[in-house]
């Protein structure tokens, strides 16, 4: 499989379990452009994990098709298909009997890379996910939860797969470390530009991580598939509106930064509190409230004034 990002297409993908009336995934059709992060989100019973596992055939399709760069997953040899897809799960599933280095080198070993190349790749990946070179010799039991998840990510990235499947990868991690891992993951993705399918039940995580969000409802039916902004601003129906929450207007503000606004002249913010231009509109609104101010002075990263913003500007 190519190491470039791959386009992923669900085409009427359906999973029915024998003896159950309702489908787990019901005629799911959506296309993830190469290099995008598609977040599958929804209540439990929405079939998001099932949909994810259909892709690497840990669960077998009942009907419909899934194509990677135009080729049906059913046409690939099963083990080759899986070796070409990075897979990260919530419980991490590191091999406890292997060192961190051996865990990361799993897929390259299966692919028969020479030892030297595996060692170099492992070193590179440890640095990429923010671990120390010495960590290669440690065992998973010696790591913290956050470190284990970094190793899980490095293992999935090892053979540079064009497609990554991530099943609630940060779900079992405390909120502070989770935020950091999310930020680092986005920074990595900015560099690597993989096609990623990311499952979460947390709408805030979905909004933060996703280029596109697929909201699945009970019975594995797709309720809406769109960009985070479009979903927050124009929820397709009552279910989506409820799922994204009553504060969706605030969440939408978090998607934009002051630098995207047309700012007023600096003179209008004489003596007003300063705020950096990369602040999100949501955080800027919080500043207006906490500073009890009508106007803020927007400054660039180097501290020079960029313009002024008034409270009413945010509410438009």
């Amino acid at each position, binding site marked *: 499989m190519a190491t470039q990002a791959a386009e992923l297409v669900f085409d009427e993908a359906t999973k029915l379990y024998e003896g159950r009336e309702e489908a787990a995934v019901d005629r799911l059709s959506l296309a993830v452009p190469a290099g995008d992060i598609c977040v599958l989100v929804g209540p439990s019973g929405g079939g998001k994990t099932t949909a994810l596992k259909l892709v690497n055939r840990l669960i077998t399709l009942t009907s419909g098709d899934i194509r990677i760069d135009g080729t049906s997953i059913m046409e690939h040899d099963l083990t080759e298909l*899986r070796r070409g897809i990075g897979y990260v*799960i919530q419980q991490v599933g590191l091999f*406890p009997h292997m060192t961190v280095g051996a865990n990361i080198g799993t897929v390259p070993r299966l692919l028969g890379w020479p030892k030297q190349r595996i060692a170099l790749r492992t070193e590179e990946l440890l640095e990429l996910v923010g671990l120390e070179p010495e960590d290669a010799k*440690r065992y998973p*039991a010696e790591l913290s939860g956050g470190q284990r998840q970094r190793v899980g990510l490095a293992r999935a990235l090892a053979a540079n797969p064009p497609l990554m499947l991530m099943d609630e990868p940060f779900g079992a991690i405390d909120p502070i470390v989770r935020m950091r891992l999310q930020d680092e993951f986005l920074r990595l993705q900015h560099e690597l530009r993989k096609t990623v399918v990311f499952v979460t039940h947390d709408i805030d995580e979905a909004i933060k991580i996703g280029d596109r969000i697929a909201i699945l409802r009970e019975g594995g039916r797709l309720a809406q598939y769109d960009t985070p902004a479009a979903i927050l601003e124009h929820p397709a129906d009552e279910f989506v509106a409820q799922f994204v929450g009553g504060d969706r207007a605030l969440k939408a503000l978090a998607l934009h930064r002051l630098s995207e606004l047309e700012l007023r002249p600096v003179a209008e913010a004489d003596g007003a509190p300063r705020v950096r231009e990369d602040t999100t509109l949501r955080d800027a609104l919080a500043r207006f409230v906490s500073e009890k101010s009508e106007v803020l002075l927007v400054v660039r990263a180097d501290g020079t004034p960029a313009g002024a913003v008034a409270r009413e500007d945010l509410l438009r």
Partner: protein
Amino acid sequence: MIVAAGPVIPNFGRGSPCEVNNGTFCTDWVRAHWSDTLQPALVQHIELALIAVAIGFAIAFLLALVGLRVRVLDAPIGYWADFLYTIPSLALFQLLVPITGITVLTVEIALVSYTLLVLYRNMVEGLRAVPAEVIESARGAGFTRTQTFLRVELPLATPAIMAGVRIATVSTISIATVAAFVIPKGLGYPLFIALREDVFKTEIFAAGALAVALALTADALLHLLERALTPWTRRVRHA
């Protein structure tokens, strides 16, 4: 009762005063009879136990594969191993001799039977205890079924399997002394002779001590092997 033929003159009927008086422990007897009695018995004992544990391991392993794959068979295999384990060894010898004769085979069938219970149960439990998410990530990474078994499940079940092997080995070394009721082999034989000959204490203590020492040594060696095979079990997070 099948009884192996012994020498006509009691071992302690001659030799040093200690031997003639059947003293508690005559080192001169041990020295004189190490090479013609004790050492051969020890070597035979090791052979009997080694063969029994090795064959028992192979059979239990195959049964465990069947028991894990075909769930409905797990309980019957377990009960059958239970049943074998509960048959008294002397009774089992009596049952087998008409079929397999007064042979090493008879002894080994009995010894192997006693290893199956602990080996089978530990293998099945050990393999079953491998976390589902570890197997899932192996499958997801593109391990074949066989690779998942050999490279992930089997290594992770090693502590449980080795615990079974240690118990099976120690108990086989102990039970193998009873083999002397059928064949003149193993450390049970000098014990058996000494008991018949008006309880010659030195020979009983010497053969008994060797059996105990053998069991402890085997257990210690297997413990070292287990440590070598499972380095990850001794590393935990120090934070």
